[in-house]
């Protein structure tokens, strides 16, 4: 996994609520057996017409907006556990997703793929979205070490929460498997005393 430290980037606004993983990557694109290439079909049915032409009114097709930060409405990533949703976002180039609420499985999948989910209050979400709407080139600064999301030169400075273990993983590019493999002895000792029915 790639290390995550700090980024400075513009952001893409997608204020819709309850964006489920079927929208992020529809099921018919889950037939690949590798992790790469899902970015092409990110938000497929919102982004493209059925004949493959881009839908002009979808934000990813609007050249005014770009960047490594996606700012989305409440309950982002609900629905299916497909990690393909996180792969698609990462493959497209997103490193941070900001929302006022994340679905559990998506949050975990994002963290396991070097994407930082930043949960902010509904009010802050509104402020961020307004800032982008007024000025699409607005550049935000995300510092994982300091756990801060700021808009330089303004009063917007959010300190976000992240599990300390997960933070360490992101900063160092470690994943859970490295950690679990190091616990092999304890796992075997656990098995030896477990009663299974």
């Amino acid at each position, binding site marked *: 996994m790639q290390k995550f430290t700090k980024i400075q980037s513009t952001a893409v606004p997608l204020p819709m609520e309850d964006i489920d993983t079927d929208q992020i990557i529809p099921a018919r694109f889950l037939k690949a057996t590798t992790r790469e290439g899902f970015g092409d079909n990110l938000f497929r049915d919102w982004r493209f017409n059925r004949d493959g032409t881009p839908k002009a009114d979808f934000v990813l097709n609007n050249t005014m907006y770009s960047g490594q930060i996606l700012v989305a409405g409440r309950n982002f990533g609900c629905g299916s556990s497909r990690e393909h949703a996180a792969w698609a976002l990462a493959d497209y180039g997103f490193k941070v997703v900001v929302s006022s609420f994340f679905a559990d499985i998506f949050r975990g999948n994002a963290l396991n793929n070097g994407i930082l989910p930043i949960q902010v209050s509904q009010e802050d979400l509104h402020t961020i979205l307004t800032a982008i709407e007024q000025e699409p080139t607005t550049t935000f600064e995300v510092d994982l070490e300091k756990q801060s999301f700021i808009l330089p030169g303004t009063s917007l400075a959010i300190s976000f929460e992240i599990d300390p273990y997960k933070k360490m993983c992101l900063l160092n590019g470690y994943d859970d498997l490295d*950690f679990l493999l190091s616990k092999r002895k304890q*796992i075997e000792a656990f098995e030896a005393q477990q009663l299974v029915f």
Partner: protein
Amino acid sequence: MGKTLFDKIWESHVVDQVDGGMEILYIDRHYIHEVTSPQAFDGLRKRDLPVFRTDKTVGTADHNVPTKNQHLPIVEELSRFQVAKLHENCEAFGVELYGLGHPYQGIVHVIGPELGLTRPGMTMVCGDSHTSTHGAFGCIAFGIGTSQVEQVLATQCLLQKRPKRMRITIDGVLQEGVLSKDIILYIISQLTAAGGTGYFVEYAGSAIRSLSMEARMTICNMSIEMGARGGLIAPDTTTFEYVKGREFAPKGAKWDQAVTYWKTLYTDEDAIFDKEYRFKAADIGPMITYGTNPGMGISVSDEIPSASTGGSFDKALNYMGFQSGEVLMGKPIDYVFIGSCTNSRIEDLRIVADYVKGKQKAPHVQAMIVPGSKQVEAQVKREGLDRIFQEAGFDFREPGCSACLGMNEDKVPAGAYCVSTSNRNFEGRQGPGARTILASPLMAAASAIAGKIIDVREQLN
């Protein structure tokens, strides 16, 4: 202070605690399928790791498989490749596979319970969010992503933060024509699609206790649709009776020991939940959804409410072609899909058969019934239900996920209305532009016959 059922099971599976509150949780059973496992096996190859506990891992092919002519090679190339990959991986890593053509093949959440692989007190995971289904047996079961599939394959463990506990109690007696699917759709409509996020739910109360295992599975299955990691129901005689004698269930003295242990699996009276809800069974009507998430549900005779969340709500109604204030009874429909890990078990299909026997589906409706597993299919045939379905004009197919997610060729066309017994009415879930109305198997059967949405209560007397 007493403990919740959830905590009792969880604590008996903690291998170690990690700084910051994460725990290493041991997993007793790992189900895998073709869609979310290939990248995990590749990960093992990259690190040169074996599957740590092959005896705790079972695979099946379900998401991608055709539901016609399963004895022939899969026509669609990518699906064929993905299913072949699963065979190849299971073979190479020594994992038991109930693949296409195997008498145990089926939707992963249908076959685990029917084979007795799912049992009380266990922890179980699968790269699929509806793993919550298995909680009906009084176990901790939840969906995971592919990186975690790899972790469990490699170590039989996961790093987890313990969720909060919620209890939802439903007391009383259900109205006639109201099934467990209606209970869960009602709960989600009350709590919203995000109302359970961060929680593990225990379902309790007299209405839950009186349900069969199949009906309990339907409820636990949809826990994820309110954002909960999973849901569970304390095991009781109904549970033990269901498990007893199944292929992989404990036998003889081991069975007696198991039951003795399983009887300790309940929430202590003085245990405290982080959140509690109580509902009355009698308040629940036959439910249908009108929007594009499972929280957007109403009793069939109710009006569609007006905007609660602004833009997203309007977008959903627009997609569905519905309006606030509209009543959906009488609305013509085009498709009926009876199947999915929510409602494709033998009991569901018996309910459908019982209703459609001697009736005819409306001519303009395409009605499809997809059994959850080879074993369900065989049972349907033994009982002669397939004939009833055919005579009523329903297309009875072979097992798989099918039109629940439209990864194979079973799709609903753009703009068409489909009354579906599955669990998700997301935009495009059943095919690009498809409009899904979630309902119980009974409501789906009744809609197929009537050709429109009706209140099934009016038909039963």
